């Protein structure tokens, strides 16, 4: 697994993939999808697919791939080696969603939530397999959100493919376990070797699991909190853990699409709230309104500081 394409720019989303085995382009294939790193406040979320001919299902089962969460990091690395050695019939692909992609998507003006992002990523990977000529007949997916709805959505998008969406699919279907291992191995490696784009000098890499409730992760976040910029791009700003720390320890930042309301916001923005019309000075009309040319350019004549 060569992570360099992602590591050269870890602020965006990146696809990595194995060679497509020849046999996958001629025989009916099954494909499994799983993700790694959905919960952590640090690092990327990785989506993985694994695919092989339906006739090889038994072989995959015998290689004893199991749900990646029940394995140690070393066991996962070993199993990934095994999967990689089966390249004559087994293929994989990954989509690495950088923490910056997650932050900027979830905090977009028109909010793009994590479930939608997950669904679109999974769909993109299935489409990638199809476009690469993999003869897909069965797809197994670990669910995000309600399984039935998701299954219906995928079945409609990919007619002719039998889609099975299940909670805990990674422990039910070996091909999903295999996908889960690929995703988790990539996530672990990326987090371990994170290349900070910020100019922070030597960065302490003792960030724990990355989960918000891990004391090590919390301590790391506090250590690397900058009052103005918040955090490095390694942190998911859209996580409430990160937001709360910034709210408490950072300086306040106002955006024009903030949904703050009331008198205070109006005062800050130097315009009138509805309430102002009920006060004594209501209706004070400006004798000399500024021309549109200036208001459109936010140009003001400055008479005092």
């Amino acid at each position, binding site marked *: 697994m060569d992570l360099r394409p992602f590591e050269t720019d870890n602020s965006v989303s990146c696809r990595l993939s194995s060679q497509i085995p020849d046999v996958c382009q001629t025989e009916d294939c099954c494909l499994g999808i799983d993700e790694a790193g959905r919960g952590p406040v640090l690092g990327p979320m990785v989506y993985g697919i694994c695919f092989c001919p339906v006739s090889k299902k038994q072989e995959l089962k015998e290689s004893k791939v199991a749900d990646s969460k029940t394995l140690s990091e070393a066991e996962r690395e070993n199993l990934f080696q095994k999967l990689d050695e089966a390249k004559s019939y087994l293929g994989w692909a990954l989509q690495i969603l950088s923490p910056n992609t997650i932050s*900027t998507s979830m905090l977009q003006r028109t909010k793009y939530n994590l479930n939608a992002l997950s669904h679109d990523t999974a769909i993109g990977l299935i489409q990638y397999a199809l476009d690469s000529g993999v003869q897909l007949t069965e797809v197994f997916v670990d669910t995000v959100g309600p399984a039935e709805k998701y299954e219906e959505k995928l079945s409609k998008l990919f007619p002719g493919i039998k889609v099975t969406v299940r909670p805990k699919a990674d422990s039910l279907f070996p091909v999903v376990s295999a996908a889960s291992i690929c995703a988790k191995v990539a996530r672990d490696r990326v987090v371990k070797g994170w290349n900070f784009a910020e100019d922070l000098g030597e960065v302490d890499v003792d960030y724990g699991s990355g989960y918000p409730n891990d004391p090590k992760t919390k301590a790391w976040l506090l250590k690397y909190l*900058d009052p103005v*910029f918040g955090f490095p791009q390694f942190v998911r700003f859209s996580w409430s853990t990160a937001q709360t720390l910034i709210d408490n320890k950072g300086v306040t930042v106002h955006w024009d699409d903030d949904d703050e309301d009331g008198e205070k916001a109006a005062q800050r923005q130097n315009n009138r709230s509805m309430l102002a019309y009920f006060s004594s000075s209501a209706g004070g009309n400006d004798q000399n309104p500024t021309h549109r040319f200036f208001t459109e350019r936010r140009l003001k004549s400055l008479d005092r500081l």
Partner: protein
Amino acid sequence: MSCNTSVTRVDVSSVGQAQRAPVHLLPCEIEHNGPAQVSQYLTATTKDCKLEKTVSFRGRGLKGQELSCPQGYTGLVLKEINKPGSDQEDRTVKVSSVFDKLTYWNLETPPNSDDTIVMAMDWPELAEAIHGPVED
């Protein structure tokens, strides 16, 4: 203000010693007046594409571009050295740095010619046409 008779002076003699500084205009209001780790965070993570620059600030995606000051103009960053004790006193601001271009950033929107700051740069030329000496 009519009740305020204080005068504000700009001490332009400091222009000569002033450093040229990179200036960024962000699409948000930051409640902070003072130093910030701009080069370590913002400059270091800025991606330069053909038509625009991209970066993120506080987890929000920004797109921006460089904009030059109008021909014949210099941008000044002013700083008040001694804050007055009352609003009746005269005030003096010094030039702390100068710039002839700045980088402005939009929230998610690619930079374009309708951006307020781009349009604002029309004013000096128009002002010259309106207020400048009339030639026969």
